[in-house]
């Protein structure tokens, strides 16, 4: 069973942690994925409550970390959507911190990366997509459909442009979901793969242990890269959500 210990895909298997009975047809069993989703929510909520603390006028060291995070997302929302986007700030901030904390928790050895599950990222993407649809139709009515027909084109071009715009609009939730899921999954597979190289090399004796330094160095470098990607993917998800919401607010190109 050496294979199981070094199998890079084994870390993504959803296993029950706490068996609970089935109530009204819903299986209440806590899996490792569900457990870490709860952990992520608790860390985000109580972390921010603990950081902001008393809400001092002159921020303490811990409070300025929270204010840095707040200011970062607020700048992003303002620069993309303008003042109108202020009402979407709580959603974008929640989305950003949830994905960021979930990605970072996944970097600890032995934890489960919930963003490496397609169902989690797709659910997040569908929430964004539904919000865009609701906002677009609530604010512009059927004027929202102008998003699919940019003004100022020769009439014949619309036969070509409208299907392309519709397809690109409908593919947005898929691209959001697959980007996050594939990034986290590929990164963690890579980490585990190099970890496996270290294990199997060092098991063949002194020469192997000397040679195992190389995959160990690569694994360390990939860990640094993964920390950057954990932040970057949360940022990209939030930025793209902002851009899509901006499309819903101003459908004319």
């Amino acid at each position, binding site marked *: 069973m050496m294979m199981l210990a070094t199998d890079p895909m084994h870390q993504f298997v959803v296993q029950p942690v706490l068996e609970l009975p089935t109530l009204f047809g819903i299986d209440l069993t806590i899996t490792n994925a569900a457990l870490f989703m709860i952990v992520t929510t608790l860390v985000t909520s109580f972390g921010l409550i603990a950081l902001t603390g008393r809400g001092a006028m002159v921020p303490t060291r811990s409070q300025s970390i929270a204010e840095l995070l707040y200011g970062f997302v607020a700048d992003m929302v303002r620069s993309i959507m303008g003042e109108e986007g202020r009402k979407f700030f709580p959603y974008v901030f929640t989305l950003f911190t949830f994905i960021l904390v979930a990605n970072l928790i996944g970097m600890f050895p032995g934890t489960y990366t919930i963003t490496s599950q397609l169902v989690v990222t797709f659910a997040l993407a569908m929430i964004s997509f539904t919000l865009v649809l609701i906002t677009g139709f609530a604010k512009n009515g059927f004027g929202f459909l102008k998003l699919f027909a940019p003004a100022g084109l020769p009439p014949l071009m619309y036969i070509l442009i409208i299907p392309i715009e519709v397809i690109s609009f409908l593919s947005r939730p898929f*691209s959001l979901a*697959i980007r996050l899921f594939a990034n986290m999954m590929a990164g963690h597979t890579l980490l585990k793969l190099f970890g496996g190289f270290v294990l199997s090399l060092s098991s063949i004796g002194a020469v192997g242990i000397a040679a195992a330094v190389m995959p160990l160095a690569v694994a360390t470098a990939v860990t640094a890269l993964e920390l950057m990607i954990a932040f970057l993917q949360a*940022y*990209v998800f939030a930025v793209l959500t902002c851009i899509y919401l901006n499309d819903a607010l101003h459908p004319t190109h």
Partner: protein
Amino acid sequence: MEIEAAKQIGAGIAAIALGGAGVGIGTIFGHYLAGALRNPSAAAGQFTNLLIGFALTEFTGLLGFVVAMIILFG
């Protein structure tokens, strides 16, 4: 040919998508850097555009990954 062997080869071929994504991401960051060195004051304002371009380019590479997964496990 065994269907299992053909699947493995197909998944390997799907990884060629990485080549295109690599060229694309290199082009994006290279051109950003070139532009940023010519006009450093305008660089910060284009950082968001840089990441959007990066995300869209990277997605084409990730589609290759998805195709490989569909071939292997689909």
